[in-house]
């Protein structure tokens, strides 16, 4: 009996091994494979980071922020604008982009403090839609509808050429690994668990003495930094920024990527991004019906895989280990929530509970 038990692998260890393998494959695989694979994976990573940001702020902290796209876009524009004003130092550009992202995040933090629930969502949504029009206010600065090129060639990206060699790709991998690692660490830390508790029931958390707003501001800034770093990298990789980067389209995409990949995990959003963008490219080449297929894919996820792909896999795994150990451990769902605003948030992400 005991010997059989001892052999059953610890879920946690398996998880860590899997992650290490994934990242090893990420660093080594595409460069070995060649044929522009690093460039395509770069695209997935650049768009995957904001999806991760969305998962953290909207999934874990349950702040429905549709404005991550705005942060992303503003940071990218900052790089472009600065490069036109003779700022070509890569570190300064990076800091500029991150700083701009922080400023936008501060605005969103203010919203989190003054509003909750769907009104917060609308504030972020409106702001993002408004941002899309901002470049038109000063065409000389931003290039208006024509967009803006990024000056400085490879100097601004530490000498790494996004189009040749693997250096830039490895920079991307390193940034991704950094944010994933940091996010995992924070999520499993006490602060992370408090954040999740606040997301589930802010009233109860406040009653327990936690400063709800402080945590909300913190998570808004953190996810803003992730999105800002992605915007910075985008500007470096594509050397061109345009209005659509600022608006709602990308923001909605990020939400989709994270929802489909699994909003409760760190890798989920990245995988969701890769999957959906790949699907879009493939379908875009095959047919003009891509929207139809994406819609059908979404429906499939909704009815068959509601926790997203990664979340669904996780649940499958949990089911397996439950049968193995034969002890019915509950999943420890939190109790009923009382206040309207908290109810909205809870209801957005979890099924109605009957007790």
């Amino acid at each position: 009996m005991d010997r059989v038990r001892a052999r059953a692998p610890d879920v946690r260890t398996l998880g860590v091994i899997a992650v290490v393998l994934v990242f090893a494959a990420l660093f080594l695989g595409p460069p070995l494979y060649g044929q522009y694979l690093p460039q395509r994976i770069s695209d997935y990573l650049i768009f995957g980071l904001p999806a991760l940001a969305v998962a953290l702020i909207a999934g874990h902290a349950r702040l429905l922020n549709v404005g991550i796209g705005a942060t992303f876009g503003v940071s990218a524009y900052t790089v472009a604008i600065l490069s036109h004003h003779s700022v070509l130092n890569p570190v300064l550009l990076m800091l500029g982009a991150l700083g701009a992202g922080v400023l936008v995040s501060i605005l969103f933090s203010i919203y989190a403090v003054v509003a909750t629930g769907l009104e917060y969502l609308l504030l972020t949504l409106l702001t993002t839609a408004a941002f899309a029009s901002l470049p038109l206010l000063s065409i000389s600065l931003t290039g208006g509808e024509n967009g803006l090129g990024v000056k400085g060639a490879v100097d601004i990206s530490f000498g790494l050429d996004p189009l040749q060699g693997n250096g830039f790709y490895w920079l991307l991998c390193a940034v991704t690994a950094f944010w994933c690692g940091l996010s995992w660490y924070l999520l499993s830390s006490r602060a992370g668990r408090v954040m999740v508790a606040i997301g589930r029931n802010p009233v109860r958390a406040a009653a327990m003495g936690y400063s709800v707003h402080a945590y909300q501001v913190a998570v808004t800034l953190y996810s803003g930094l992730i999105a800002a770093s992605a915007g910075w990298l985008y500007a470096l990789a594509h050397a061109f920024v345009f209005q659509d980067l600022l608006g709602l389209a990308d923001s909605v995409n990020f939400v989709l990527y994270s929802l489909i990949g699994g909003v409760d995990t760190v890798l989920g959003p990245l995988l969701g991004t890769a999957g959906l963008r790949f699907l879009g490219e493939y379908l875009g080449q095959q047919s003009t019906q891509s929207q139809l297929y994406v819609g059908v894919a979404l429906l499939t996820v909704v009815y068959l895989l509601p926790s997203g792909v990664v979340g669904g896999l996780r649940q499958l795994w949990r089911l397996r280990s439950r049968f193995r150990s034969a002890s019915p451990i509950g999943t420890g769902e939190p109790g009923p929530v009382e206040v309207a605003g908290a109810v909205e948030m809870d209801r957005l992400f979890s099924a109605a509970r009957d007790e």
Partner: protein
Amino acid sequence: MSLEHVAVAAMNGLVVGASLALVAAGLALLFGVLGVLNFAQGDFYMLGAYIVWLALGHGQSFWTGVVAAVLAVGIVGGLALMTMLWPLRDRAHALVLLATLALSLIMEQLAANVFGGDAKPIAAPISARVPIGHTDYPVYDLIVVVAAVVILVGGFVFLKYLKYGIWLRAVAQNRRMASVLGVPVSRVYALAFVLSCGLAAVAGSLLAPLTQVYPTVGLDVNLSAFIVVIAGGLGNFRGAAVIALGLGVAESLGSLWIPGVAVQLMVFGLVIALLILRSQRQRVLVRL
């Protein structure tokens, strides 16, 4: 800037606001009952417009087309939504949002496939014009405003005094208790879906002569309707209607004095300020 210019701009604003109010009211109704925003609302608007186009192409009158649009989209759309969303009613709201988003994508693609992506013009059924000062204002536009107001007032009366309207509000406010009191909840849901789609179709079909018909004609209305519904206080039928009319007029009047882009920003700013001022209230129920 003469008074006449202002009057014309205000009228234009009312026309846009009226159709927006119809779409937003439908959204608010659905939100109140089911607790979610229907991303495909703009696409039912679009379908309404296409059905009018189809009717005209088959030699029917414009008004026949409108009636056909409302019935067809209301019933078929309502049933489709019911089939899709009823199984999800106790699951996470995010899933419902995703499902309606998926429906929206599919509807737009199918519309483009069936009708082509080009914009089809539709002639207004009444080409008469009425003088307002020195300008001749189209009578049809005025009719649109009147029709919208009549429908919205009718909706208000329905919700307040008629049996199914009261049941709708009851289900929105306390579904459990409503069923305990004998209200057939699934029937009420179905009604809410049908009405919501019908309202969108009315708006789409009435506005078709003014905007032309193309697969994404509903998108702008959609976004504005979302804004209106949330700013009006979710599930608040009257609030949504009033704010929609107000915003339509505000944007139209604003563009007299402020150049294009800034008007949009001004409108956004107004709504943002409104929300921040109102952020105390959080109730999510169908009110009148």
